[in-house]
């Protein structure tokens, strides 16, 4: 059974890394930036952001520090570490690769079925 939960966190992680790569952000700021750069098309349940943020921090991809926000409130600011930058590059190219493969496959129309059958026989 394909589980949505296993796909979503991966995507969310990549989105968070990308958002933070553009400059240090606090949690709510991450949310706003993702909404902003996606043109309000991606809606994330707000609370779900935090397990992902903390997981990335635990993995050493994000560094965090308490500071004062533009609203003059205490907030925890996240920043990409060297490992996080590396991960972002890897994930981005991986994403691009999969996306192009997927779009190629989805572009194929009638030839798809025999092509797969032949492959199966060869194997």
């Amino acid at each position, binding site marked *: 059974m394909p589980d949505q939960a296993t796909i979503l966190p991966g995507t969310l992680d990549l989105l968070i890394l990308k958002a933070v790569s553009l400059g240090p952000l*606090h*949690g*709510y*700021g991450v*949310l706003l930036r993702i909404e902003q750069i996606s043109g309000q098309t991606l809606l994330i*349940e*707000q*609370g*779900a*952001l*935090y*397990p*992902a943020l*903390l*997981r990335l*921090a*635990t*993995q*050493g991809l994000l560094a965090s520090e308490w500071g004062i*926000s533009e*609203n003059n*409130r*205490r*907030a*925890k600011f996240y920043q990409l570490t060297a*490992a996080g930058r590396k991960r972002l590059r890897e994930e981005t190219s991986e994403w691009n690769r999969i996306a192009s493969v997927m779009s190629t496959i989805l572009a194929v129309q009638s030839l798809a079925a025999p092509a797969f059958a032949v492959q199966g026989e060869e194997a």
Partner: protein
Amino acid sequence: MKLTAQLRSFCSAIFQRSTVENDLNAELSSHILHRADDLQRSGLTRREAERRARIEFGGYVKYKEESHQALGGNLVEGLLHDLRYSLRVLAKSPGFLLAAVLTLALAIGANAIVFGLMDGLVLRPLNVPHGESLYGTLYGNNPTWQSYPNYLDLRDRNRSFEALAAFNMVLGVGLDTGSDPTVANGFATSGNYFDVLQIQPFLGRFFHPADERGPNSAPYIVLTYAYWHAQFHDDRTVIGRQVRLDQHPYTIIGVAPPGFQGTLIFLSPDFFMPIVNQEQLSGASLNTRNTDHALFEEFGHLKPGVTPAQAAADVDTVGAYLEKTYPKEVGHHTTRLATEGLTSFGPAVRGFVAALMLLAALILLAACANLGSLFAARAADRSREVALRLALGSSRTRILRQLFTEAVLISLAGGSLGLLLSMALLRRLSTWQPIPGVPLHLPVAPDAKLYAVALLLALVSGFLFALVPIRQVLRVNPYEVVKAGSLTRAGHRFTVRDVLLIVQVAICAVLVTSSMVALRGLVRSLHGNYGFDPRNTMMAGVNLTTAGYTPDRVPAMQRRTIDALKTIPGVEHVAMVNSYPPLVYTAGNMTNVFREETADLKPANAALMPYEYDVSPDYFEAAGTALLAGRGFSWSDDKNAPAVAVINREFAQRIFGSVSGAIGRAFKLQDGTRVQVAGVAEDGKYISLTEDQQPAMFLSALRSPAPDAYFMVRSRRDPQQLAAAIRARFHTLDAGLPVDTETWTQLMEVVMFPSRVATLALGVMGMLGAMLAVTGIFGMAAYAVSKRLRELGIRVALGAQRSEVLQAALGRPLRLLGFGSAAGLILGLLATKVLSFIVYQATPRDPFVLLGVVLAMLLLGLLATWIPARRALSINPMILLREE
């Protein structure tokens, strides 16, 4: 870097939980406040904005929990949660908890004790540098070999040992420091003893080869640390002090290091003295080659590259040389060498410990089987709870983990309790002095190894019995259970629990059988036929040398003593035996005898090597030994009369073919004396209860007077009064003569000791086994009844008779009990072969043992099923059916 970051956050999750908690709360509420700020800007009131922000955030608690998990704190959290839950569950069934913890405590305690014994007696080498490579000759290995001149030759001629030391025991020496004389036990050692052991004195100095200048030339003693501590209260000025050992002056020259207790693991001497001086104290002649009394053992480090087998062959070469050089005095047999510490008791001790180990392991296995079936029963009872938890979304792993937590909690509690028990018992064992006059010492102090073993055993057994219900849990189908109520698998096929019960009952039957065999052996050895009657016999040990008698005054004094003792009212017989009577201190003197026609009296030509006892007239009456033919000794069998002997049946049969044909025949002693057989006595035991039948001969003590003798007084009077009367008689004979009075039975405690210990140990194991059987069968029967209460109620309602109800309720447990007992009985009888080398006459084909085991198992079964049976019989169908 990633790993360290994870570790750091994991650690902080454990140790700074509150900090992490606060941090997380602050971060999440900061988010909500920021969102509320935005919403407020879009025109909402502050209150409304905060409310909306909270709603938009989603499940606060859920995300907080997930964040915790993301921080790495989930494992600990889960464990803590399991722990709390397990404690709650266990607290709800205190009976189960108590039974389980006690069962495990006993089983693990038994194992820890046996491990402590094994560690102290078998695993640990002597407490000296490189103790594991010290090899020595075995005591009793080679009669007419352990003499001082032979030691000197072996020391100088062997090519295998770096250096060879020797020692002997000097027991029961009067040590007089000037104020209060006490009896002390020492080792008489060769001058190089401490050099060979490579140890340094704690105080003062040790003696060395340079101190030895012939017999009685080195009046020095070295105290053991323990004795110095106990008797001299750590007084450092004792060095150089004069003391008297049996009236001879000695100088204390040093104190041995703490922890060094001589070269026998199970004895702790009080002092060490040069062996060249032992003649003064024990009378064992130093320069006699033909004796077994001068030395106990020789030992040393093997040279690099020399194997024990090569060294033994080397010793044999020297032995052969000595035998050739001194044909009349040396008889050498093949040598065995063993690591120093347990000497010839090694195989027996190791065998005993191994047997105990096996039994203890069986106990633990039975306990695990017991708890396993209890756990399985509980798991079945809790199938509803498990099903509910599964239905509510808990994973099976989580449920199993919780089960294991429960099991480990129980096993740890049981293990700790067992460890405490074993520590208390081992502490007592290490100060145990079961045999008066013998400085027995069991080095069994509990240490870290013991704790580790107990912990390991606890964890392993916890996992073992938690494994049993796993399949059950994995099979639970939540929908079925919730729909239909608890699982009732009525069926006639064997379940895991049945098998466990059979295994458990079988193990218990093995243990019960072993302990019964041991018990029978002890009873037999107490009432056995030793070839004499130790009851109603008082022994008075007197050494005339220590009291200053010259050899020419000894026979007259001994004769006067016998006459004086005879005048005590109520005394039936008085006799004397030189050295030790049979079965006292495992001491015996073997000599070579030759057929009459043998001309060349070298030891290799000996016809027999019987035990020799030099006894006075009236000995056989006093000892209660039956004469089968001929006569005993009279006062005229002295040096001027032709030499005569009384031999035992074994001797008569091996040399002369029969009892009746032996009378009047003759044999020769090592010194050439021709001895005529005057009588034949019944066979007996001489140095140990388990020995094979040995030949023995009795010679007249009048022909070879010795200053060291036991007077035996047979009388039905109260032993204490008798002892007082004997002492009074000695006092009138010579007021300054030290006398030891003990009954023959008391003196036999040393030879009884192994079978007593074996019986005690096996008895305890048997009791443990019986207890486990009772709890196991009880658990099974109680469970069977409680599971089938409803069915039984219906049976009763339909008119079933009491016997039918019982049959239905308890038939199965009882059948299993029968199977298990039969299997265990057979196994146990096979196992008694192992016991026979410790336990006197341990024979499996003993109707009393068979009957005893069957009765015991029946009784145990009855006891264990009594309460469940009562419960089954008291079923009231109306109440029961209404409740359901």
